[in-house]
């Protein structure tokens, strides 16, 4: 059957085409308008919407630089760790989720309840809450296996000290956000901190990178590494010896600094202190050797004597009439032992650590020169270490000297120094009269692995080489014949000085309520005396019973000096006639071995202890 067409249609055959054309025009017009709205006017919104769907930005953490000892051993490293976080708005049953997390996280009921409160999105309204920061991999894996809703992970770096608390007071610590809070971590925080990077990639719906998609990388910058002058082995031995002596003497604490005089490099720096509450001896985070001052006592006498030699007032052989006590202003100073008034040589004054003799030399110098030389030796101002909270010491202004100052200060009372300052003063004598600033940083290593050596500080002359040489000879006598005998070691000439100082108490004065004095025992020295390679200061705080520097601090010095010579492979320059090798008259190998064998037999019989024979 033929289709029925209207007459109009039959009459106007182009009408259909016109209607279709109009329809198409309207359709395309609508599409065009929509296109303009989407692509033009509303383009930015859709662009950002699309970008957010397919572009992923990954923050690349800038790792914190490591801290190494002088031989490249890790002392502090940062490792990526997973942090567990939650979006509380996605958690319907916070109590159950908290209970599930408590197992792998090891939370007790109280901590679990706190966590449940944090996970309750209805009360907090927040979309982010930490669950646990920087957990172990095993813990993170266990939590991930739970597949809990609203629980996510992010990566953060955590600081580790592989050697435990070794050099803790030097290294310092970082907070939870990896910012340095103390020690070198604080001092070099800017250098150690890395710079975050960013990776922008185009991903599919499953967050996989699209082939050929956008890929924009701004690489993270690793922080610089620090290479310290510290030697890990020396540091360990120093801490071991110091701790053992503090325990043995029932002391309240102690500090030791070991250095190379010629370069100012600090090889070891140890600090121990008893916990105020528990009384337990702990490796304190406070680098007391740099931040805490003490009255040094007799070790300070070398400054006065060196000043007098430098000024040409006397020589080591000059005789001075020394009574056993001396009135200075309103105080009577006395020597440790009673003795008749005698002619003491300067050498003897130092060897026997005569207070009166030293005061008489100081009186020859006068207060101005005493004050001047104390400052030239580095007292009264912080060293060049720049260590956080470093103390400058307490040194009276010349104008503030009292009548007794000229008696007290030369013998190390009424003056306060850090252990580091005192060691540097002795290093001046070891260095032929030059003050070489101490340093803890040997080099830095940038993010590309390029090592940049840190130069030594600029030396300055304090006394002449002649004066330094004379002082070294007298200090050798102190150890060989005087108060510092316990600081000597076989085969080496050791130069050193003992010091035993009354400790000022916090409430003022030197005597406690029971009328007792508290003491600081210390010993400073260097060896080999003829060409010093190692210098050490040992300070023991409030030893009980035996209080003297020569018997409390000097043995620690001897232990460390012996170990240090072996570590640094410094052979003895000659065989001395003292010590355990006294029988080896000409130092031949056969005789030495024979003496060693005799010693071994004797020691075994006497104490049943082993004798190690090493090079």
């Amino acid at each position, binding site marked *: 059957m033929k289709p029925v067409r209207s007459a109009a249609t039959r009459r106007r055959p182009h009408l259909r085409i016109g209607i279709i054309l109009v329809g198409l025009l309207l359709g395309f017009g609508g599409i065009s308008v929509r296109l303009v709205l989407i692509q033009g006017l509303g383009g930015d919104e859709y662009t950002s919407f699309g970008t957010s769907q397919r572009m992923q930005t990954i923050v690349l953490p800038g790792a914190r630089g490591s801290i190494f000892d002088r031989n490249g051993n890790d002392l502090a490293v940062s490792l990526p760790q997973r942090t567990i976080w939650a979006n509380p708005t996605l958690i319907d049953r916070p109590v159950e989720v908290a209970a599930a997390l408590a197992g792998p996280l090891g939370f007790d009921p109280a901590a679990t309840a706190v966590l449940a409160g944090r996970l309750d999105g209805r009360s907090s309204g927040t979309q982010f809450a930490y669950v646990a920061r920087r957990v172990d991999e095993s813990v993170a894996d266990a939590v991930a296996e739970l597949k809990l809703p609203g629980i996510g992970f992010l990566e953060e770096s955590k600081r580790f000290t592989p050697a435990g608390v070794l050099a803790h007071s030097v290294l310092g610590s970082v907070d939870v956000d990896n910012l340095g809070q103390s020690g070198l971590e604080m001092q070099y925080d800017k250098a150690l901190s890395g710079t975050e990077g960013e990776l922008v990639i185009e991903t599919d719906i499953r967050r996989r990178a699209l082939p050929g998609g956008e890929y924009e990388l701004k690489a993270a910058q*690793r922080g610089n590494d620090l290479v310290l002058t510290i030697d890990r082995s020396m540091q360990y031995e120093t801490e071991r010896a110091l701790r053992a002596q503090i325990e043995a003497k029932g002391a309240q604490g102690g500090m030791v600094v070991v250095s190379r005089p010629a370069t100012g490099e600090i090889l070891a720096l140890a600090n121990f202190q008893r916990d105020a509450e528990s009384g337990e001896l702990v490796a304190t985070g406070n680098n007391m050797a740099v931040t805490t001052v003490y009255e040094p006592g007799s070790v300070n006498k070398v400054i006065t004597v060196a000043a007098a030699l430098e000024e040409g007032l006397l020589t080591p052989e000059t005789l001075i009439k020394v009574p056993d006590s001396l009135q200075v202003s309103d105080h009577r100073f006395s020597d440790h032992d009673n003795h008749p008034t005698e002619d003491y040589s300067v050498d003897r004054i130092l060897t026997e650590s005569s207070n009166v003799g030293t005061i008489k030399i100081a009186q020859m110098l006068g207060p101005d020169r005493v004050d001047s030389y104390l400052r030239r030796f580095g007292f009264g101002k912080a060293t060049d270490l720049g260590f956080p909270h470093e103390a400058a010491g307490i040194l009276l202004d010349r104008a503030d000297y009292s009548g007794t100052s000229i008696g007290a200060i030369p013998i190390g009372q009424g003056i306060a120094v850090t252990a580091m300052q005192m060691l540097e003063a002795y290093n001046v004598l070891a260095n032929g009269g030059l003050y070489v600033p101490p340093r803890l940083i040997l080099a830095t290593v940038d993010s590309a692995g390029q090592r940049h050596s840190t130069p030594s500080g600029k030396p300055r002359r304090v006394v002449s080489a002649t004066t330094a040489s004379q002082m070294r000879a007298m200090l050798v006598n102190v150890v060989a014949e005087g108060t510092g005998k316990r600081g000597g070691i076989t085969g080496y000439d050791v130069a050193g000085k003992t010091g035993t100082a009354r400790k000022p108490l916090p409430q003022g004065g030197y005597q406690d309520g029971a009328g007792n004095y508290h003491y600081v025992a210390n010993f400073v020295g260097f060896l080999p005396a003829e060409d010093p390679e190692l210098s050490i200061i040992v300070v023991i705080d409030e030893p009980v019973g035996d209080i003297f520097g020569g018997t409390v601090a000097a043995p620690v010095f001897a232990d460390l000096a012996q170990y240090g010579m*072996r570590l640094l492979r*410094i*052979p003895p320059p000659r065989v001395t006639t003292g010590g355990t090798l006294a029988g080896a008259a000409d130092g031949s190998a056969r005789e030495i071995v024979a003496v060693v064998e005799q010693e071994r037999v004797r020691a075994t019989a006497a104490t049943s202890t082993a004798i190690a024979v090493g090079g």
Partner: protein
Amino acid sequence: MSPLSARAQVSSVAPSRAPAARPKAPSRPGHLRVVVPSKRRRLRVSPALVVGSLLLVVAVAFGVAIAQVFLAQGQVRLDQMEAELISEQSRYQTLRKDVAELESPSRIVAAAEKQGMVVPDDVVYLQPSNPDAEVAPLSGGVEAATAWSTVKPLLAAPAP
């Protein structure tokens, strides 16, 4: 011969009666006309060429698809390798820390003491009869620096 003379020539030979009627054209549909065949020959496409072209198009499309697949596979492999790299770097750092812990003097001393070793109360050192004999370089000197320069660049490789 000029045109005038030609016309005169025709007139002289034409008959004296009326001109004969034109022959009648054959009957044809209104608007149809004869189309003179073009002298150009119609282009005859070979079936083999058509099939070949189609195959070529399919092959190209298939090739593009395969290339895309390889690209995607490559990207996946790249992602995997990057993840592996990060994982291995993390593992390396962890192992480095573990090694440092194992090398730490406190652990070694503890392990030695566990085996019954003790620190002697008195240590006696042998010394050479010739003090001027050549000795090994000091610790932390050239040896350490050389070892460092070899190892350190590997330790401080830039983060990904």
